C-alpha cells in the first residue's frame, strides 16, 4: 500500500509537470504573436518592446523561461501578461463557482444516471426502456452550450418565461437560496449529457451482469429480486460508472466545464481559462492547466482505491 502511494505520487507529479511543459511548448512552437508586443500595447515604440522583452525574460532560451514560470507558479507570484493580475489569486476567485457547479451537477448526474440506467435495465425491452434509451441518445447528441443557450431563452430571465434567474454566480455565503436558484439551470444543463451517457453504460453493464452464473446462484438460493439487484448485480455493474464519474468529476472540477461556465457566465476557473486563451495569455493558461491536471491525477488515484473496495479481487498496484 505504501509502495502504491509513493509510486502514484511520483507519477502524478511527473504528469503535472509534463502537462505544463506541453502547454508551454504549444505556445512557444505555435507562433501566436509576441507577448512583449501585447504587454506594451498598441502605441509602443520599438525600444519599449525590446525593454519589456528583456525585463520579462522573453529573450531567454525557452527552457529558462519555462523554469522561471514554474518557480513563479509555485511561489504564488505568477502574474498575467495582459491584466498583470496574480494568476493564483484569480484561480482561487473562480474556484467557489466551479466547485458549486461541479458538486451540484455531479450529484444530479450520478443520481439520475444510476436511476435511469437501473430502470431501463430492469424494464429492458418495454416502453419505459425504449423511452429512456431514446431520451438518453438525444441527451448525448446535444452540444451542451446550445442546450444552455436554449434553456436560457426559454426558462431564464430575459427570455420567454423568466422562471429562473439568468446565469451569474451568487456566493453561497451571501445568500444560499439565491446560490441554489442561480445554479439550478447550469446544473441541469451540464448534467443532461452525463445522465444520458451513464444511463446507457449502466444499462448495458447490468444486462451483461444479470446473465452471470453467480446471479443465477443467488436466484437459486431464493434471494429476493431486489436484494439480488442491489447487492449482487449493481455492485459489479457500478465499477465502470465509478471510473467514469471519478474522471468526469475531476475534469469538471479542474475547469473542464468551460462551455457551461461561459454560457451561464459563472466566472469559474473554466471561463477564466477560456478568456485567457482568447487573450493569448500564457501564465493563466499554465496555471489552470496545472490546477486541472492536479484534480485529474488525484481523482484517478481515488478511483483506483475505490475499485479495490468495490471488487476485493482488485488490489491497488
Amino acid at each position, binding site marked *: 500500500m505504501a509502495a502504491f502511494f509513493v509510486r502514484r505520487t511520483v507519477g502524478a507529479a511527473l*504528469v503535472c509537470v509534463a502537462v505544463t511543459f506541453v502547454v508551454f511548448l504549444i505556445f512557444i512552437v505555435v*507562433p501566436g*504573436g509576441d507577448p512583449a508586443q501585447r504587454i506594451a500595447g498598441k502605441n509602443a515604440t520599438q525600444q519599449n518592446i525590446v525593454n519589456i522583452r528583456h525585463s520579462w525574460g522573453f529573450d531567454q532560451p525557452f527552457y529558462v523561461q519555462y523554469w522561471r514560470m514554474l518557480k513563479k507558479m509555485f511561489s504564488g507570484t505568477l502574474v498575467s501578461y495582459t491584466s498583470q493580475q496574480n494568476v493564483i489569486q484569480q484561480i482561487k476567485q473562480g474556484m467557489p463557482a466551479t466547485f458549486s457547479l461541479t458538486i451540484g451537477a455531479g450529484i444530479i448526474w450520478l443520481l439520475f444516471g444510476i436511476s435511469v440506467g437501473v430502470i431501463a435495465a430492469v424494464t429492458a425491452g418495454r416502453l419505459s426502456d425504449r423511452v429512456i434509451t431514446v431520451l438518453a441518445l438525444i441527451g*448525448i447528441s446535444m*452540444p451542451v452550450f446550445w442546450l444552455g443557450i436554449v434553456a436560457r431563452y426559454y426558462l431564464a430571465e430575459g427570455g420567454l418565461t423568466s422562471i429562473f434567474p439568468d446565469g451569474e454566480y451568487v456566493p453561497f455565503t451571501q445568500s444560499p437560496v439565491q446560490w441554489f436558484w442561480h445554479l439550478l439551470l447550469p446544473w441541469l444543463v451540464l448534467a443532461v449529457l452525463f445522465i444520458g451517457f451513464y444511463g446507457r453504460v449502466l444499462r448495458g453493464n447490468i444486462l451483461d451482469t444479470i446473465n452471470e452464473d453467480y446471479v443465477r446462484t443467488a436466484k437459486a438460493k431464493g434471494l429476493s429480486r431486489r436484494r439480488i439487484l442491489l447487492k449482487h448485480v449493481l455492485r459489479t455493474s457500478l465499477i465502470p460508472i465509478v471510473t467514469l464519474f471519478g474522471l468526469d468529476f475531476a475534469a469538471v472540477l479542474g475547469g473542464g466545464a468551460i462551455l457551461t461556465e461561459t454560457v451561464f457566465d459563472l466566472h469559474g476557473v473554466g471561463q477564466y481559462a477560456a478568456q485567457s*486563451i482568447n487573450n493569448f495569455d500564457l501564465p493563466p493558461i499554465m496555471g489552470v*492547466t496545472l490546477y486541472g491536471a492536479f484534480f485529474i491525477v488525484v481523482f484517478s488515484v481515488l478511483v483506483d482505491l475505490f475499485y479495490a473496495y468495490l471488487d476485493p479481487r482488485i488490489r491497488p498496484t
Partner: protein
Amino acid sequence: MAQRVTESEFTLDTAAALAAAEPASAIRGRSPWYLAWRRLRRNYVAFAFLGLFVLILIACALAGVYARHVAHTGPNTNHILETVRVDGKPVPVISQGGYIDKKTGKPCTTGGSDCVLLSAIPIGPTWFSAGGRFVLGADQNGRDIAVRLLYGGRNSLIVGIGSSALCVFFAVVLALLAGYFRGWVDFVITRFFDLFYAFPVVLLGIALGSALAINGFHRFGINIQSGSLWIPTLVISYVLIPYVGRPLRGQVLSLREKEFVEAAIAQGASPLRIMFTDLLPNIASSVLVFFTLIIANNIVLEAGLSYLGAGVQPPTPSWGTLITDGQDLIVTRPWLALAPGIAIILTVLSLNVFGDGLRDALDPRAKVKVEH
C-alpha cells in the same frame, strides 16, 4: 428432399449422405463480415438513421446548387440594404430596430416589461413564400440562414469526418506499434496517451485551436493559413487520439499473444506485414465502430470549439459558428440558433444510433465504448 432418419440410425455416413443430398448452394463459407451484415440488415432502426444521415450528407453536398438556383445568394453574401418580396409585398431584409416584444417578435404597441430594444432586426423565416429566398430568415448581416446552414453543415461534416479519419488512422498506427513491439515502444506510446488523458479535452482543444487561429502554422515545411478548416480538423483529431488509441492498444496486445501471430513470425513475415495484414483485420470491426461514433463526437466538439472562438473562424459558416452568431438574436429570431442546433442533434443522433447498430452487428458482445 432428405430422408427421415431416427437418432439410433444416424452415423457419419448418413450425415455425409444428407449433406450430399442438399443443394450445392446451401453450404457456403460465410465471412464474419457477411454475418455482421446479415445481423445489421435486420436492424431497421439503425438503417432508418443511416438513411437520415445520408440525407443530411446529400443536402449539405448540394449546398451550392441550393444557393445558386433556389436562394440566389452565396453563404457570405450580405443583403443589408435590399428588400425581398414576401407574398408580393416588399419587406426589407434588415428592418430598423426599435422596441420589440420578446415573446412574439413583433414591434411593441404597449410599453410592457416584455419589450426589448434592438438596433436592427433581420427578416424572419419566409417558409418559401418569398420564392425560396430567406427560407429560414437572415442574420444580422442579411445573409440567408438556410444557405449558411447547408454550407455550415458541409464544413461541420468535413471537419467531423476528416478529423475522425485522421484520429482513427493515427490511433491505429500507434496501437499497432505499441501492441506489436511492446517494451519501450509501448512504454513511450502509453505515456503519451496518459499525458493527454490528464488534459480536459476542451481545454487542450481551445489552447491549440486559438494558438493556431491567429497566424496559422508555418513551420517544418507545413503551411496552413489561419482561416483554414485544416486547423480545427487537425486539432480535434489530435486531442482524441488517446481515447481511441488506448482501447485499440489493449486489443492488439491480446491479439499479439495468439498463435496466428506466432505462426506468421515463424514463417518469417516482417513486422509491417504482421501489423497490417494479420493484426489490422482483426481490429477492423472496432476501428469501424470507433470511426462512426467519433464523427458524432467530433461534430459536437467542433461546435464547442467554434463557440469559444477556437474552431472554424468567421465568416466561414459551420454549425458551431452559426449557433454563436444566432445567440445574440435569440430573443427576436430564435431560428438562427435553433436550426443549427437541431441540425447537429439530428446528425449526431443518426450517427450514434447507426454506430450502436454497427457495433451490435459486428460483435454482439463488444466492449467498444466512446468516452466523452
